[in-house]
């Protein structure tokens, strides 16, 4: 249905994406997710040629539309787009908004166009609003009319560009319900969205955009439950990460603790947990310094990850050197710190490979 080959787009010096290859099959519903500013909207606009790509090709139904002698108007008749800001025609009422394109572009006769429009309006649950003007409708209602407007052209594919981002939470539901209905009916669609729950249950496939292109893509199940790559994982789990490295025995532990505290306070982590994080790290560092780096400078790096979604904290502690697991002799009275850590943590694991000890601690 839609295929791109090495699509490339830049604004001046800034590359939005490059070497972007997507392939969307008929009947698929693909969610495009990713942090703001990674080019989701630009991608959609480029697919519809509202922005000219700076390289690469776009194929619709096997036909290249980036070529020279393509009547883009003809292509767009089969190409629906629903925008974040609705963009209904403000001088026309709801019914005229929907019938305008069928009448003027497709040359459908008036009666037929009106009947179809009323059908679509009842589908989106706004039959009574047919004579209202856009400014008299709520945001959610406007977006539903906008969906009906693009459906009136019987498109082969609809691109939803953040359809609920401009709506307040009480109205997103009504719009998402319509989109779900369309997805079930087998319409081919691409949706860029920040509603992760919605993306997860409506999309058959998910594309995660980051670092100027597609960073990871796969079945919704995999992307949401078992993301393979680092940034995807951070994005899906809404992870906040603090990292720190120690390369000298005389490192400033007070400053480290202050930084951890500031990081934690930023994300509203409760005081008890902050103390636990600091305690665990302090004890672990002392333990490693005493056990592993007795006569050499330490090479320690650790990260504290906080998942806003799950409220979990994960400490990943890396130290270079020979294999060293501080948790093997945990009942030893000389290693009170280890006993402390074991008491606080939910789960501890150790792993050694390529001269690197990795210790994961869940709190």
């Amino acid at each position, binding site marked *: 249905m839609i295929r791109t080959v090495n699509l490339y787009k830049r604004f001046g010096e800034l590359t939005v994406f490059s070497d972007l290859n997507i392939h969307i099959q008929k009947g698929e519903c693909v969610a495009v997710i990713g942090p703001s500013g990674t080019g989701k909207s630009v991608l959609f606009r480029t697919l519809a040629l*509202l922005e000219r790509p700076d390289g690469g090709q776009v194929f619709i139904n096997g036909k290249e539309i980036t070529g020279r002698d393509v009547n883009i108007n003809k292509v767009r008749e089969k190409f629906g787009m629903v925008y974040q800001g609705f963009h209904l*025609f403000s001088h026309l009422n709801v019914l005229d908004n929907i019938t305008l394109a069928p009448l003027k572009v497709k040359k459908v006769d008036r009666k037929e166009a009106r009947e179809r429009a009323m059908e679509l309006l009842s589908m989106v649950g706004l039959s009574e609003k047919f004579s209202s003007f856009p*400014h008299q409708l709520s945001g959610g209602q406007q977006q539903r009319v906008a969906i009906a407007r693009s459906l009136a052209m019987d498109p082969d594919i609809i691109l939803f560009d953040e359809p609920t981002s401009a709506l307040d939470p009480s109205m997103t539901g009504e719009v998402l319900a319509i989109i779900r209905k369309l997805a079930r009916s087998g319409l081919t669609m691409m949706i860029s969205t920040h509603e992760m729950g919605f993306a997860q249950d409506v999309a058959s496939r998910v594309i995660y955009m980051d670092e100027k292109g597609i960073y990871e893509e796969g079945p919704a199940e995999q992307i949401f439950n078992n993301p393979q790559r680092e940034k995807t994982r951070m994005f899906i789990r809404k992870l906040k990460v603090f990292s720190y490295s120690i390369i000298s025995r005389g490192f400033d532990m007070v400053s480290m603790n202050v930084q951890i505290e500031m990081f934690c306070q930023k994300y509203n982590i409760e005081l008890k947990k902050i103390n636990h994080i600091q305690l665990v790290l302090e004890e672990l560092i002392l333990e490693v310094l005493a056990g592993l780096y007795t006569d050499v400078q330490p090479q320690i790096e650790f990260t504290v990850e906080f998942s806003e979604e799950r409220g979990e904290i994960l400490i990943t502690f890396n130290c270079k050197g020979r294999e060293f697991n501080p948790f093997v002799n945990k009942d030893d009275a000389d290693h009170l710190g280890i006993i402390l850590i074991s008491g606080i943590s939910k789960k501890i694991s150790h792993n050694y490979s390529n001269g690197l000890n990795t210790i994961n601690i869940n709190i």
Partner: protein
Amino acid sequence: MNLYVLKTGDLSLVEFVNSVANSFDKNIIDNNGWLVILKGLEITLFISITALLAGTIIGALLCSMRISKVGALKISAKIVIAFLRGSPVLLLLMVFYYVVFANSRFDAVFIAIIAFALNSGAHIAEIMRSALSAVDVRQLEAARMLGFSKIRAFMAITLPQATRIAKPVYQSATINLVQWTSVVGYVSITDLTRTVNNIGARTGDPFFALFFGILIYLAISYMVNFIFSLQGRKKITL
């Protein structure tokens, strides 16, 4: 032939009404003054309407040049608009009459129409430009996505919306134009203003004649407002 005597009421009121009636007779009825005024009104309306139509066309042209992507067109439109808007229309008229068309055999009315068309054209160009820029471009884009060509999307979406935005300003520009045509007497055209002035000078009662002229201009303004209110009355405003 004094038909307007009041029999009752305050004496001074009676005197006042009598004197007004007298002046009316002297200025408007005697010597067929009203026919002369009608003739002047015709000239004023002719210049105004023709200049407005020509000015609208010129305005549309200047506006399309002004917003075009071709640098030369854009800059030349900018200069022309600035010049025309910045120079007093009376001076423009005199330059055309005494200098540019001095040796031609063009009628003074024709020259006046050119001057007023150019002046109001420049104003209208800016009115159009500001109205066009006030329209949401994303709606145009939405129309393009539905398969409209650039021109047809403009005609179906941008133009009707811009027209609605421009209407009140265009309306006052029209009234402005009508009133500014009162200076054409300077180039020997006998328009409404010149006529009432002449009558006032002849009868020695300039106050009444001139005031009567003002009333006619006022009536034209109301007429213009009425005509504009006819169009688009049934539609709901934006």
